Each structure stands twice: as C-alpha cells, then as structure tokens.
C-alpha cells in the first residue's frame, strides 16, 4: 500500500532549519502564501519556489519533499488545461489557437503557468515548515499565539488518525480479497471503504469516552507540557518575515508593470504542446494512482 501513503510529516533531522522555532517558519510560510496570492508574476513566483527548494535541500528533506511534489505536480497540471480554455481572467480573452471546439487563450496559458508556480511556491514553503518542525511544537506555538486548545487537539488527532486509517484500509482490503472480492473498480469501493469508516467512528466514540475520563475538555485554566524555546534570532526572523511580506505586497500593488499577462506572448505550438503535455501527464497519474489503490 506504499502508493497511497502521502508522507506529509516531520522528517527528523538536525539541520539549521530544524533548529529554528516553528513560529518564524510559520511566519515565512504564511508570508509566501500571501505574496503568492497577491501576484501572478512568473518571475516572483518562481524565485520564491527556487529559494524554497534551496532551503529544502539545506534542511536535507529533499526526498520526502520530492514524494509530495510528484503527487502534486500532475494534479496541478489540470490547472493548465482548465485555465488555457477558460482563464480566470476578465474578458475579453486573446485566442492563440483553436483545436476543434476548444480555443486556447493567451490569458489562459499565462494564468495556468502562474497558478502552477503559485501552488509550488506555497507548498514548498509549507512543506519546509512541516517537514522540519515537530507537529506538537507547531501546535504548541500556535496555541501560544491564540489558537484554541480544542482546535489544537483536533489537529493533533487528525494527524495521528490519517496514517492509522491508511493502515486500516490496507487491512480491510486484504480481508475482502480473502473473500475473493472481484478485483478492482467501483465494486471494490463499498466493501473496502465501509469498514474503514465504521471503524473510524467507533474509534472516535471510544476515544471521546476515554478523554472525558481523563478530565479532557474541562473549562478553566490549562497548561502545556510541550515547551518551545524562542531565541532572539527567532524573533528577528519573524520580524524580517513580516517586513519582507509587507514590502513585497506593497511593491506588487504599486508596480503595475509586474502584470505580464499582455507582454508575455506564447507561440501557438508552445501552447498546444503545453496543454497536451498537461493532459497526458494528469491522465497517466490518475491511471497509476487507481491501479495502486485498487489492485495493490
């Protein structure tokens, strides 16, 4: 069942980035998110992406990141396909080339490419944060800046539950195969999903009784066992992150020349090639993923 497991969790290590407090990392990841949404400029987005990748390499979490990227890339290719024929842009659109009933638009290709870059810039930085910080430390830090305790708990539990459910799914699939379940396709979905969900519900019911019995959910003053240390450098990093984000956002809003949607012109052959590549890439991914999930 390796194919189904998406390894978004901490990769233990001792790099300089691992040693930074989660809050500055969170501040920077959030800053990149804000900037990525503020602009469509391919140069800014790809710069953020490249810097993110460099930091991923510095943190030595490249392998884990690559696994996530390999799943993310084909999925985000759909954006190129969808955007090229129906851009998220105010009309009128400039057509580049028509193939049968479909027309590929200049704005569409621009928008597709920038969205792809945007997703990669954001997720690279988010992965950098997640893969170099202990989840408990992230949640404890968030709690310090005001996240409710219960929300913290729900997030923690969800993170714990995901690998368990994946594991349960594998067990159930084996149990049904042992009953000669007819291979794959939709016929296999019900027998393999129902037990997993019912099991999850039973688990949560049991857990809630167990938690109540341990005074969980009391009103009143709460304390935290996890301690996250904050140094001068961490605070400096947070300040720099905020300044950087604010500065970039200001620049993006003020400098209209950063909008390249008119100036960056695509050759029809490039447009067709890109759309075809994206379609095939996505389809290949879907086929491989389904085979992995259902046949295993």
């Amino acid at each position, binding site marked *: 069942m390796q194919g189904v497991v998406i390894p978004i969790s901490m990769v233990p290590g001792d790099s300089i980035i691992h040693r930074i407090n989660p809050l500055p990392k969170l501040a920077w990841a959030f800053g990149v998110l804000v900037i990525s949404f503020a602009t469509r400029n391919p140069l800014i987005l790809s710069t953020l992406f490249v810097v993110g990748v460099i930091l991923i390499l510095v943190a030595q979490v490249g392998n884990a990141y690559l696994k996530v990227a390999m799943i993310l890339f084909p999925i985000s290719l759909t954006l190129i396909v969808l955007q090229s024929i129906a851009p998220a842009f105010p009309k009128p659109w400039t057509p580049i080339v028509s193939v049968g009933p479909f027309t590929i638009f200049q704005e569409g290709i621009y928008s597709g490419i920038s969205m792809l870059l945007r997703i990669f810039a954001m997720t690279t930085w988010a992965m950098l944060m997640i893969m170099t910080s202990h989840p*408990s430390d992230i949640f404890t830090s968030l709690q310090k800046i005001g996240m409710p305790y219960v929300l913290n708990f729900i997030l923690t539990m969800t993170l714990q539950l995901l690998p368990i459910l994946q594991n349960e799914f594998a067990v159930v699939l084996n149990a049904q195969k042992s009953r000669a379940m007819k291979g794959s396709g939709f016929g296999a979905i019900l027998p393999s999903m129902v037990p997993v969900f019912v099991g999850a519900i039973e688990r949560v019911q049991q857990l809630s009784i167990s938690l109540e*019995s341990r005074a969980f959910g009391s009103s009143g003053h709460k304390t935290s066992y996890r301690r996250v240390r904050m140094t001068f450098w961490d605070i400096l990093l947070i300040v720099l992150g905020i300044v950087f984000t604010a500065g970039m956002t200001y620049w993006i809003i003020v400098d209209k020349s950063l909008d390249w949607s008119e100036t960056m012109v695509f050759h029809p052959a490039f447009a067709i090639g890109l759309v075809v590549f994206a379609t095939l890439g996505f389809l290949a991914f879907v086929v491989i993923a389904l085979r992995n999930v259902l046949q295993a």
Partner: protein
Amino acid sequence: MSESKPIIEFKDVTFWYGQNETEPALKNINLTIHEGDYVALLGLNGAGKTTLQLCINGVVPNNILGNFEGQVIVDGKDTLETPVREMAKIVGMVFDNPEFQLSQMSVGEEIALGMESLGYSYEEMVETIDEVLDIVGLQGLTERSPFGLSGGQQQRLSIASALAMRPKILVMDEPTSNVDPIGKEEIFQVAYELNRKRNMTVIMAEHEVEVMAQYANLVVVMHEGEIVLQGTPEEVFSNVDLLKSLGLRMPQVAAFGNELEKLGIMTLNGHYPVKLSQAVETYGRLFEKKAG
C-alpha cells in the same frame, strides 16, 4: 479487608440507554466496594459490566445520557453532582482497545493530556510523567510515539495516563482482551502491584477467570444488567450450577473439583480450590493417601 472504609457505593442503581430501550442496561444495582479491594467483574458480553464501570466516574449518566435512577457515591462524592473532570482525580479508567485511547504525538504528551486540562504546572507534569512511567515500567519512552508501542505497552501507557491524576481507584474494562500473553502478564502485574503496594482499589472486568481468582478478593457476577452473585472467589466459584446456567466459565481447577465431587472421588462440600497453589495441595491429598 472488611475493616477498611467503603469507597464505592451503588444504591439501587437502574439505568436505561435512551428513552426507547425497553430493557435497562443496569437493574437495581446495590454494591459496596471497600478501599484496597481488587474486584473482578464477570459476565457475558452485554451483561452490563461496562455500563457499571462507567457509572463509577460518572461518565454514565453525566456524559452518556439516559434514564438514571439511584445513587453512586464514590469517595464521598455523589457522581450525579460531581463533574467527570473532578472524578478523574479519584477514578482512573482503562478500556479494552489500547489504540482507541491514544491520541497524542508522544508518550509524554499522552500522559500530560489530563494534567494540562486540570492546569498542573510544567514542573509538576515532568515529575509526574517520570513517576507514573516508572510505576508501569515504561521508563525512558517519554519521546516515543504511542502508536509505535506494543499492545501491552500501550495499555500500560493508558494506565500511566490515568495514574497521572493520582486517582484512588483504577477501573479497567477488559484491559487484556487485545494484547498478547506477554502484554497480559505485564498488565496483570502492574494492576496487582498498584493494588498491593499502593493500596489502590482495582475494579477489573475480565474473561480470564483463572487470573481473576488469583488476584481478586471480591468477585461480582453480572447477568442481563443485574448482579447475580458476589463474594470471595471461593464463595462465587462454589456456585457451579448457577455459573453454568449463565454460560460462564470457572477456573479449571475449581471445575475439576466439582467433577471429582460429582463422581464421588473426593468430598469437598463445594469448597473448591480456585488458585493453582491451593489446587496442588488439595488434589495432592488424593495421591498422598494412596502412596502412604
């Protein structure tokens, strides 16, 4: 143990889950448990053992709603008037599925969960975590993930999490039903030591009658929501016919004594040995007489 004071008292307790249930889950329960008792709760699945146990810390009827009649007094507190979080300082609960009780990223955090809710200081938590891990024999595992532990270790972690709030009573609902023999041994050992060395009151629902006969001083037999028998292991396991009609097993050495008596090989007047050591002595006489 009769000199020690009562710590749990059930007075005419009847409980229905939901309005539409015709049969109550508990029927007219009257039960007194003393401080330092080791109580074995026996009965078929669905006999009401779990419901009875959930009454002890007030989860029934405060969190699991239903029709509740009667009164449960635990360490001087009426469970109807005491919030469950207060009860957590008196009663620790351990359930049958080890994994279904765990939720945290590390053993330390798992144990700290209850203490955080009650507002313990950081220093107190660190100290307590070390202490309870020591009691259950999981020293040095503070940073490990609870989900990477063996079933027996997970169950001992659940015990430790309950102990962190320094309860006087430990309630365990079939704690060994999902672990392997080594795990079972470990759990029974921890419960035994808590009972003997720390005078903790233990209430354990269990199908392993041989082990229960070994450790418990009070055996309570439930059937269809009622308590049908209670007494010392020797008293309870002399009721062979009743237990059989309820579909319950008794320790093999006691059942053996009953067979011998029925066949007229040995006269025991219903006083069957329930522990292995007793049995070796009692049945040894059969061979000694002949040899002599």
